[in-house]
């Protein structure tokens, strides 16, 4: 839709497809540059620094300089690395993320394709990303890379499940609402879901869904506090430790593009995408601005969480997914099913979801308090959370002193 509307001429399919692909690549690169710059600036503010200032006005050209450096840098392959897996891995990690652009709605009419199964497409294709990560990890012939890759695989598979289930719960609500207009089967299309949120953003109907989606998103993207696969202090960068030059840059580009796309997806699914809040359409037609405002809020949230939260341990991460998020998302699906089957109103759906979110928050708070008071946990390797170290270590020292 995008390009033929702009150009106003009819063109052969293959030229149209080519133009769409070029548009995606350009947008993706610009977004990655902007995100890297923003992340450095915001993080610097959190840490009482100023961040990049020298390159261009207030450092805005820093990402371009970094990209130039990466392109001109020598591309080194370790002599013991597996040639094919090592060289193909960046593409395998990159292409799926690239494809996820296809069903993303930026405005009501600006998207590459409105897929009827857009949501399933996003998760089905994005899941292939992890194959590239594992290829890189195995192909590098490096212990740290392998450890990082195995962690990434475990993490991706664990967090995919609650995330998918919570999207199922969301689609159930969307289908129920769309069925009023007669076409419930459109609920798999991201466009239809955004189109339904003119008056009520789904974050009000599914607050638990929003929370689990954001947490799962952080884990899928290996963002702090879930960055064990690429933790510099533990596995020195993880699966891309042996990469340099442009191949490393491709992993980086894939990571930031995935961040941008998942944030756009989150804002489309839960915050109403291009819609004005609560149906207050003032008729300015600023859909693209609205999308980017909502996206930016989430991006600042994601970047801020890197500065605000300490890194979890890998076992805490897995336990949180399997023992907390997964049961809650299953309960959410069942609750939605029961409510919708008996024709419950929207506010019932929202209230139940909010109650579940409150229960989840209470549970996490309770677990943290209990761990804090317990004092039996031995600190083995890296201090994961500050509160674990404080109390328990005092006793053995005193006993030894006597």
């Amino acid at each position, binding site marked *: 839709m995008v390009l033929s509307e702009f150009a106003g001429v009819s063109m052969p399919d293959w030229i149209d497809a080519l133009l769409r692909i070029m548009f995606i690549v350009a947008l993706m690169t610009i977004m990655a540059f902007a995100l890297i710059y923003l992340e450095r600036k915001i993080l610097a503010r959190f840490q009482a620094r100023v961040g990049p200032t020298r390159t261009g006005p207030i450092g805005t050209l820093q990402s371009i300089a970094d990209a130039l450096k990466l392109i001109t840098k020598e591309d080194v392959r370790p002599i013991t690395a597996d040639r094919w897996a090592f060289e193909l891995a960046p593409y395998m990690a990159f292409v799926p993320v690239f494809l996820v652009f296809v069903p993303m709605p930026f405005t009501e009419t600006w998207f590459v394709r409105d897929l009827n*199964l857009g949501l*399933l497409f996003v998760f089905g294709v994005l899941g292939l990303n992890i194959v590239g990560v594992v290829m890189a990890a195995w192909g590098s012939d490096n212990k740290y890379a392998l450890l990082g890759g195995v962690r990434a695989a475990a993490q991706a598979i664990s967090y995919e499940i609650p995330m998918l289930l919570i999207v199922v719960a969301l689609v159930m609500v969307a289908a129920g609402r769309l069925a009023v207009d007669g076409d419930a*089967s459109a609920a798999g299309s991201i466009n239809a879901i955004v189109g339904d949120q003119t008056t009520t953003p789904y974050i009000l109907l599914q607050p638990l869904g929003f929370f689990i989606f954001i947490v799962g998103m952080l884990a899928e993207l290996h963002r702090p506090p879930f960055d064990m696969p690429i933790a510099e202090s533990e596995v020195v960068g993880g699966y891309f430790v042996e990469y340099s030059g442009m191949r490393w840059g491709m992993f980086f580009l894939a990571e930031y593009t995935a961040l941008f796309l998942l944030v756009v997806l989150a804002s489309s699914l839960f915050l109403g995408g291009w819609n004005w809040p609560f149906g207050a359409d003032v008729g300015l037609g600023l859909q693209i601005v609205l999308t980017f405002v909502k996206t930016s809020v989430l991006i600042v949230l994601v970047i801020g969480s890197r500065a605000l939260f300490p890194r979890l341990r890998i076992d805490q991460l897995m336990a949180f997914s399997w023992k907390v998020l997964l049961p809650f998302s299953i309960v959410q699906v069942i609750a939605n099913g029961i409510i919708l089957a008996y024709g419950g109103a929207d506010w019932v759906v929202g209230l139940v979801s909010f109650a579940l979110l409150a229960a989840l928050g209470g549970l996490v708070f309770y677990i943290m308090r209990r761990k804090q008071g317990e004092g039996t946990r031995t600190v083995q390797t890296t201090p994961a959370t500050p509160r674990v170290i404080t109390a328990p270590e005092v006793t053995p020292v005193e006993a030894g002193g006597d």
Partner: protein
Amino acid sequence: MEDGVTATQVVFWILAVVMLISAIGVVTVGNIVYAALFFIASLAGVAGIYLILTVEFIALVQLLIYGSAVVILILFALMLTRARERPQALFGRSRPLGIAAALGLLAALIGGIVATTWTTPESSSAIQPVGLQAIGDAIFTIWIVPFIIVGVLLSIALDGAIMLASPDEDDN
């Protein structure tokens, strides 16, 4: 569309060649991780075929399920074998058994294909794509019993895996 080579046919043949080469690769390369990677290429080809047949749902499920499955397969290969140190032996003592099983499967498949009476629709517009809702209706109404049985079976397998993997309580 009707005369000459259509774009669909070109895509089909490309996919078919990719699928065949990678399927042969799965069983002939000595390196088990390569075999797993060839496997996902082959499965992606199958997903492409599903796309040509306009069953997008099955194509996407194919990617979603097997993408994760192959990663787990690679992890098993890494943890349970020494893939990097020496190439795996392709043939063992059970070679005749394997050949017999493969030939039997081939015969069954060919027999099935030959025995089926294939109906050809008059035109491509006669093929109606199956909607997502139709699939959901079919699974949750007509085929609900097999669906539940599969679910129970998978839960049993999962519980068994957890039982085997979890350390004994009195070990530490």
